[in-house]
């Protein structure tokens, strides 16, 4: 049986359909999850998609963090059992929920930036990056207004020391993120958050490349390898 990957829709989620398409292209079954249902429908993994949940009012992800679904998701993710990928707004929600350290703040340019972006995969050992090789550069899409990753120096040092920086910007820092960090993981490697959009680089026709698909095939390989799922 193929893996079932939930894609959560919050009020204001925008890239949910796109994430579901990427899941399907990778060969998994996308399952839509609704923010107001405290029910993960027994999925094997979850994607928190991009968008402007609750209009990004107050702070990006600040209100979505309190959705009923999150009360199910957070403990499962924290324990290491449930793989969760947060993309863009999803990354912001993961930080606001304290599943990942640090925070995302206004781009240094103070403007929204939409561009094709090269990333270097720094950690190919997470649930979502196993199909890449370490050091590989991939071309995906970056589109965000509050994508500047910040954390205190001690946290940054620890992330580096423990290999928890998952992807880094290459070819110029687009938003002022500390140490060019584009994405990070938790200590179990099951929760990954990144600002750029791998799900917009899955089809040659509509994306700058198909090199983002690896995030979605990785979770299938991870399942197949019999890693703890909903243990």
């Amino acid at each position, binding site marked *: 049986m193929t893996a079932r990957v939930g894609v959560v829709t919050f*009020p*204001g989620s925008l890239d949910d359909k*796109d994430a579901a398409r990427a899941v399907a292209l990778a060969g998994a079954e996308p399952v839509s999850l609704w923010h107001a249902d405290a029910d993960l429908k027994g999925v094997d993994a979850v994607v928190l998609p991009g968008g*402007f949940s609750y*209009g990004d009012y107050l702070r990006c992800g600040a209100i979505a963090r309190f959705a009923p679904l999150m009360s199910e998701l957070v403990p499962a993710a924290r324990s290491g059992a449930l793989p969760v990928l947060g993309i863009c707004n999803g990354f912001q929600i993961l930080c606001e929920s304290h599943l990942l350290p640090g925070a995302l703040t206004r781009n240094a340019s103070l403007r929204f*930036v*939409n561009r094709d972006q090269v990333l270097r995969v720094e950690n190919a050992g997470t649930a979502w990056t196993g199909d890449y090789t370490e050091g590989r550069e991939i071309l995906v899409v970056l589109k965000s207004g509050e994508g500047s990753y910040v954390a205190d120096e001690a946290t940054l040092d620890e992330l580096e020391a423990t290999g928890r920086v998952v992807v880094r910007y290459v070819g110029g820092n687009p938003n002022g993120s500390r140490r060019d960090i584009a994405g990070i993981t938790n200590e179990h490697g099951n929760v990954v958050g990144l600002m750029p959009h791998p799900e917009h680089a899955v089809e040659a*026709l*509509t994306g700058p490349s198909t090199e983002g698909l690896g995030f979605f095939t990785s979770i299938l390989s991870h399942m197949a390898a019999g890693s703890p799922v909903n243990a």
Partner: protein
Amino acid sequence: MSEVPGLDTVAVAHENPDTPQPYAELGMAKDEYERVREILGRRPTSAELAIYSVMWSEHCSYKSSKVHLRQFGEKAPENDALLVGMGENAGVVDVGDGRAVTFKIESHNHPSYVEPHQGAATGVGGIVRDILTMGARPVAVMDALRFGPADADDTKRVLPGVVSGISFYGNCLGLPNIGGEIGFGAGYIGNPLVNALCVGVMKHEDIKLAQAPGPGNKVVLFGSTTGPDGIGGASVLASATFDDESHAKRPSVQVGDPFMEKLLIECSLELFEKDMVVGIQDLGAAGVSCATTELAAGGTGGMNIQLDRVPLRDHRLTPEEILMSESQERMMAIVEPSKMEEFLAVCDKWQILATEIGEVTDVTAEEAARGGRLVMTWHGETVVDMPPRTASDEGPVYERPYARPASQDALQADDAAGLARPGTDAELRDQLLRVLGAPGVGDPTWVTQQYDSYVRGDTVVSTPHDAGMIRIADDSHRGVALSTDGNGRFTRLDPYAGTQLAYAEAYRNVAATGARPLAVTNCLNFGSPEDPGVMWQFAESTRGLADACLQLGTPVTGGNVSFYNQTGDVAINPTPVIGVLGVIDDVRSRLRTAFGSEGARVFLLGE
């Protein structure tokens, strides 16, 4: 006298026929006011005056442009693809596979000058609701912009604000921005142009119309609460020249909430899918006035509204202010009583406030002949009792005088032959650099980088290409391509040919992607229609577009007119912005504006 102190009821209007009324301040001409009195057989109440003043404003009634716009219908080419033509919120064309596409471009020029960010943002919001109202899912936006010279002080205020407004609203709705244009010119100082286009996709059977059939059906207002946004905006803001005084008064601007609009879109689409509405209208410039009169006029002609039920953000609002409010992100639906419960449940799911504010009524034959009967009460007292059709469809129509300006000959005589030619390599180089470095020619990445072009995952072609293209279905490779173009300088020199050139450019841009041009929308940005020279430009421009559309076989399906783009008596260069939509059976065969491979041969086609 009325129970509510100061309330101007129909009874009060009868008792005090001679109370002076501020029709002029509301932008109404004396003879228009007299006509209202004639229609009603008495003086209007304040609420009725509010309705007529916004509905008969240039912005809503097209009173100066109507006689010219008619050509688009009269000269329309035979076209089997047209499912809904001009006159509805937006035109609808058949694109095959049982799918249809609706698209339209609209201006938000004056509000964007007053408050660039909010003005442009709410411009996007408005056109998106127009498309939604047709029953379609909005799938992409474009924007055509004009500013004063790039180094002018006011441009530094207006341009970043407009771009951030479009970016903020469009991105937050999850609509990819697939193209547009930016131009600069002296005349646009104080008169920036912000024209926003939206395209939506639906199945043929999903087409919705603005009508209120079936006596007993409920009138439901849903979306945002009503506040004092842009009160008087429809007639005062959108139709009057900016002089220093009105600038100082700074009318209360409309503020957009794209998050609310996103919920409204999803909520409405679910309501459509579950077949829970029989008629629907978005609340645009003329708010509740427009929605009630148009829905009633499109249905039985009869409607009762309890105006005090309209949920307010500011409890001090009077009936006439509620009627004129331009608060954003609101819709009005006509719902069968048996479906009300389910309707409210869907709204609740999307956290959308929905309020029943009245119902559709029957009218007698006599009332129907007069234009129907719309009655509104305020805490039980009647403040409106009027034939809605007289406001929505039977507004004034002007045959404005027009004449070719005497200066036109001199303008045309001053042609390129009189310009100095570069004599040396250095001069040639200098000229080339000046052209390439001109703000209107240079790289627009500073702007386009702020727009999300990828969201929805269906964008096949977008910036920097000449046209945008999106895939419109998951189960086929069908797509549509769109381009907007306009050139105020050409149109100034020759309004007839200049408009045709803009159309031809948009047409070529679409054709060059591999799509088949199918239909046209347009936003006509001009100076004051009261100036015969401007009116001549307008007449020539519309004639040019209608003739060209007939020749190339693409009907005009809708559009928008923006007059009074001028400072003092100096009008902008006439700037019709033409949008062309084409269809492509297989997006995988699309072409882009780039040399595909090394060694390919390059041909120049045409003269």
